[in-house]
């Protein structure tokens, strides 16, 4: 089963790459990039939910990835892929320390530590001058040869990472994480180091978030501290809730829907907030399991009917 899912997933990603490659550069391609990045961010958030924690430091990790890639590009001008990877690694290293120290707390406490951490990191950017202070960093461009292919590249990277996350989730490690969410005492009682497992889980998520950040830096060319406030985590959570966190495709569905809605709502001024807020509120009220939840239910009903 898992294998087949992976293959069909890979197929879908390939298909998307072709689709984006076929598109003429324009607003559409940008939209694709934003959606892809949103998907990855939400997926990172979801991955930490496997151990039952809401990781609001996601925004911080995205930021670290973006600034990591930004510094590597503009200051040290390393090769493109290295920069991207560097961003991810920065996030992982920080995630390792952050997780090791804070994952002893749980639930709302962990959530709000993450929140505080995000704010601190953001404030640090504003005070560090070689990071551009408040006005941020400019000129984070992908290499020329990639200009035309950037959306394809982004979709490909995101797709591959999503499949990787899915594979990890289905692995014994992933099962252990879910077991921890269910009942960490039992997991501990059978000789598994719960704390380190949690930390490892956070690091994986941090890497995904970091790459998402790096990609967004290259897509936007400009980054500023304001981009990585806690609202980013909040929106990621929104994508996840609207899409449905039980299903690995939840982030995809949610991000696609909400980012498209946002681009429609754009230009409504204050109305944009109302519109967006309304979308979130209604979807959590009307479909507690999110879009994927609805689809699955419909699918099962259909199967029952055909069976009967």
């Amino acid at each position, binding site marked *: 089963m898992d294998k087949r899912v992976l293959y069909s997933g890979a197929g879908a990603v390939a298909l998307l790459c072709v689709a984006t490659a076929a598109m003429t550069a324009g607003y559409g391609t940008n939209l694709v990039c934003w959606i892809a990045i949103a998907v990855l961010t939400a997926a990172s958030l979801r991955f930490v939910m496997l151990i039952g924690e809401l990781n609001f430091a996601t925004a911080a990790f995205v930021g670290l990835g973006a600034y990591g890639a930004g510094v590597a590009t503009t200051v040290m001008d390393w090769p493109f892929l290295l920069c991207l990877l560097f961003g991810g690694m920065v996030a992982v290293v920080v995630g390792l320390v952050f997780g090791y120290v804070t994952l002893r707390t749980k639930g709302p406490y962990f959530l709000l530590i993450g929140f505080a951490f995000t704010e601190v990191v953001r404030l640090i950017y504003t005070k560090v001058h070689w990071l551009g202070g408040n006005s941020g960093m400019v000129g984070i461009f992908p290499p020329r040869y990639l200009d035309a292919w950037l959306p394809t590249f982004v979709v490909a990277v995101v797709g591959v990472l999503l499949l990787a996350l899915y594979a990890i989730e289905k692995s014994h490690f992933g099962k252990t994480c879910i077991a921890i969410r*269910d*009942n960490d*005492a*039992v997991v*501990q*009682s*059978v000789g*598994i180091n719960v704390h380190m497992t949690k930390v490892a889980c956070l690091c994986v998520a941090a890497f995904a978030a970091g790459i998402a950040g790096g990609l967004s830096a290259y897509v936007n060319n400009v980054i500023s501290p304001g981009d990585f406030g806690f609202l980013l985590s909040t929106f990621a959570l929104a994508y996840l809730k609207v899409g449905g966190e039980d299903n690995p495709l939840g982030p995809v569905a949610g991000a696609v829907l909400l980012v498209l809605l946002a681009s429609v709502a754009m230009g409504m001024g204050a109305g944009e907030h109302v519109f967006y807020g309304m979308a979130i509120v209604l979807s959590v009220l009307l479909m507690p399991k999110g879009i994927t939840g609805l689809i699955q239910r419909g699918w099962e009903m259909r199967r029952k009917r055909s069976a009967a």
Partner: protein
Amino acid sequence: MTGRTDPILRTDKIGRRYGGLVAVADLDMEIRPGEILGLIGPNGAGKSTTFNLISGFVKPSQGRLFMDGVDVTGEAPHRMCRRGMVRTFQHGSLMPSMTVRENILIGAIGALRGKVRSQRAARAEHAAHALGLTHCLDEISGNLPHGLQRLVSIAIAYAAQPRILCLDEPLTGLNQTELANVLDVLRHIRDESGCAILLVEHNMKAVMQICERIIVLHHGQMLASGAPLDIRTNEQVIAAYLGKRHAQ
């Protein structure tokens, strides 16, 4: 049975106090390979605390804990488990949202760290078979009837390849047939793996039936220890505890 061989686990004047309240004090006990040992006592006698102490979930405030002669006082639960000390919990000792197969697999994962998937799967399969759970491997464990859930939680622990298997009231809420089945299963497990089994239980009849040795706790202290017969006839014990029941 054996009892000649030297113990796997030994406690030396171990104890735990919460503020003023003494839960367990100066407890000396040992668990030998392959024995089925009963730990009984009225509510609040300190059974659970003892359990937590020897499984590392609670750090002792006095005394020392030895496994295979090594001082392991204050070691983390997962380390204790890696030394062969596996325990279950009184309430919901499983992962309700996961299937029975996955539940048991977690135990195998704990036991076979760094081994390949197939080995773990095999181990889980084996444990499931030993507990007679092969028929419901793909059910969501949370939806199973109470009796089966008990078996699952034992299976998880057994899959972790225990040398000492500590079961916290595994029989409560079981009907006669289920109960008989569990007792058989426990004996079978012991015979096949040679692990010792420590049983905290309220059901006297069952304890007397299955245990080869019984420790009676009272007010956090060891009141008596010996074969079921001796315990049954021990005045102190009767006075403190059994008396009420025997009267019925």
